[in-house]
């Protein structure tokens, strides 16, 4: 089970400033383990950000996004009580998500 997306956010003048962390190995497929075997590529391919179930931002990533990706973005037209949700899917089909209720 993949770890949950950690989200922090601040609402100012209707704009939500969101910072998120997604624990994930982000293996490129070119690294070797201590025995010299190639570690298969394992990385997040798509990230989708929602405000109250409406898609506001999507990201397509390659394996060159750093391990345990950090992703910050801003969402317009937000109000207290709105829910920001982030989900990701990796190249193995695994997925995870996280939620934040704006204050």
């Amino acid at each position, binding site marked *: 089970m993949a770890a949950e997306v950690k989200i922090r956010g601040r609402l100012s003048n209707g*704009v939500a400033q969101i910072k998120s962390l997604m624990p994930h190995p*982000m293996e*490129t497929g*070119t*690294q*070797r383990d201590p025995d010299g075997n190639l570690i298969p590529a394992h990385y997040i391919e798509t990230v989708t*950000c929602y*405000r109250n179930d*409406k*898609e*506001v*931002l*999507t*990201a*397509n*990533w*390659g*394996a*060159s*996004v*750093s*391990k345990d*990706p*950090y*992703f*910050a*973005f*801003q*969402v*317009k*037209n937000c109000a207290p009580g709105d829910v920001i949700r982030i989900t990701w899917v990796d190249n193995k089909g695994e997925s995870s998500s996280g939620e934040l209720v704006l204050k």
Partner: protein
Amino acid sequence: MKRHDMNMNRRKWLSGMLALGSAALLPLRVLADTKTAFKATSADAALQELFGDMPMEESAAITFKVPDIAENGAVVPVSVATDIDGVQSITIMVDENPNPLSASFNISPDAVADISTRVKMGKSSTVRALVRTADKIYFTSKEVKVTIGGCGG
């Protein structure tokens, strides 16, 4: 119901279905393009896959923050922001990486064209930020010196 009303309804329904159809097709096409672009092994090939023959213009209206010297190539902070109107996507590319395309962000009208993340860099390289609008690609670039590589080093 009068004949006239019926025609109007039919027309509305038809145009509604057409709009739905094109809206559903668009993201699929974009996704297909990016999949191959992420496999490209040169910046030029990745640009061609992503943007085809769209006109490109260097722009000072993109605020692009990357360190001049990255001590750890495994974690290079990157921020891209712009006040250009009608931004559809922001793309980050590291020319010297085995696969230069690193990340692409689709910005809806409800999102601000301002994103930050961290990328890996195998060695010193030109890093580009590209901003797509409906009819043009705006870009800016910076040289980043890497002292310890982040890809299989």
